[in-house]
């Protein structure tokens, strides 16, 4: 098994705030429910305040992540979409 979660750090800008992604989760090519299942597992391994960056290609992931985040107390900081690739940044609550 190849580990899905890659440990590295990047910086993104949101307004004036610099966000540091603690982990990046590659969920590209995965169909529902796997992007959320993986996201949930990945975020459980983080500390409160840490940021998880998620890459996904499943269109349903957008609504589902937004709804899931609401029900969990985490925060969806930012999401982007380009050429079928969705990126999300979630801060652990």
């Amino acid at each position, binding site marked *: 098994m190849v580990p899905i979660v890659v440990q590295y750090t990047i910086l993104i800008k949101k307004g004036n705030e610099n966000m540091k992604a603690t982990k990046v989760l590659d969920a590209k090519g995965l*169909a*529902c*429910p796997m992007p959320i*299942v993986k996201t*949930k597992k990945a975020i459980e391994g983080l500390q409160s305040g840490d940021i998880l960056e998620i890459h996904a290609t499943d269109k349903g992931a957008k*609504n*589902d992540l937004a*709804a*899931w985040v609401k*029900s969990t107390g985490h925060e969806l900081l930012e999401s982007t979409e380009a050429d079928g690739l969705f990126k999300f940044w979630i801060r652990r609550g």
Partner: protein
Amino acid sequence: MSVTVKTAKEIFDQVLNGEELFILDVRNTDDFKDWKIEGKQIKYLNVPYFDLIDGVEEIMDQIPKDKEIIVVCAKEGSSKMVAEMLSDKGLATSYLKGGMKSWSEYLYKKEVYKDDKMTVFQFVRVGKGCLSYMVVSGEEALIVDPSRFTEIYKKAAEDEDVKITHIVDSHLHADHISGGRVLAEETGANYYLMKSEGAVFDFKALENYNKIDFEQVSLEVIAIKTPGHTPGSVSFFVNDKLLFSGDTIFVSGLGRPDLGGKAREWAKDLYDTVYNKVSQITDDVIVLPSHYADFEDEVNRAGYIGETLGEIRKQNEIMSNQSIEDFVEHVAQSASSETPPNFEEIIGINRGVEKAAEEKQQELEIGPNRCAVHHTH
């Protein structure tokens, strides 16, 4: 217990049989509230799948142990996951193959009328409340308001050993993508649409046809121009027996005139249609609309969506003895709230000014139709 897979057809057959079903819908709450599998005998539980990733223990007390559980989600994946969890708890569980996407695309075929001149079939798109028709006479068939699933009509024509020679759209649809143009290309049939609807591809303008005759049998299709729903809505009056009413008259109400943004103006046209044109048609004519709102409320004893004009008049006070002012007020008010999902893009595709790949078409059509006046809340 093993998990079984159910097709949209199998579930709809169970609904038709009035079976008691328990549906665990694991989509987001908003999606569930907006649109779901309907049935009077269905009990529902909606819990988003992402709340069940760690297990189903927390909802076990809300799930009946003596009934079959059908798990439903948007595309299938999540429902399969949850169904397997329930099955591990020893419950008889199934899930909907292809999810609500396949529910949106299922068509149920039913014979609705037969005499020595013609046989008429109704195609019920159960997930959206859209109706289309095939009129068979001699060796030819005419299709009314086809959905984009053209294979289904071609197969139906093949089953009857007839050729599709004419296709009509009662208006430019706002809630679903018409299959008329593609079906005409595939079959070589004539495709008729009102020119005033603004389509930009080649078709036969209904403005130029008072009648569409086909076969030597006297099957007569008269286009009665019935503005109101959209400026170019028509109805088709067949052999003085059947009225394909498009989105103008439904079994339980009238079409909504507001989707072009000129509700009051169009409501006046609708009044004119109902009071000066439809009023000339006799009570025994069977109205076959292009939509319904609630299958079980509107299905008749013969098992299809349709009703005699006399009965519809009786049940809809708005169709007689109302002043034009009251009528316009009622229609304009009741039709002002919700619109069909993505209706502007769908209209663009149906006009031929926008294009969309199949996946995009599926996406645009997902969700309920909201075309009937009484369908608003």
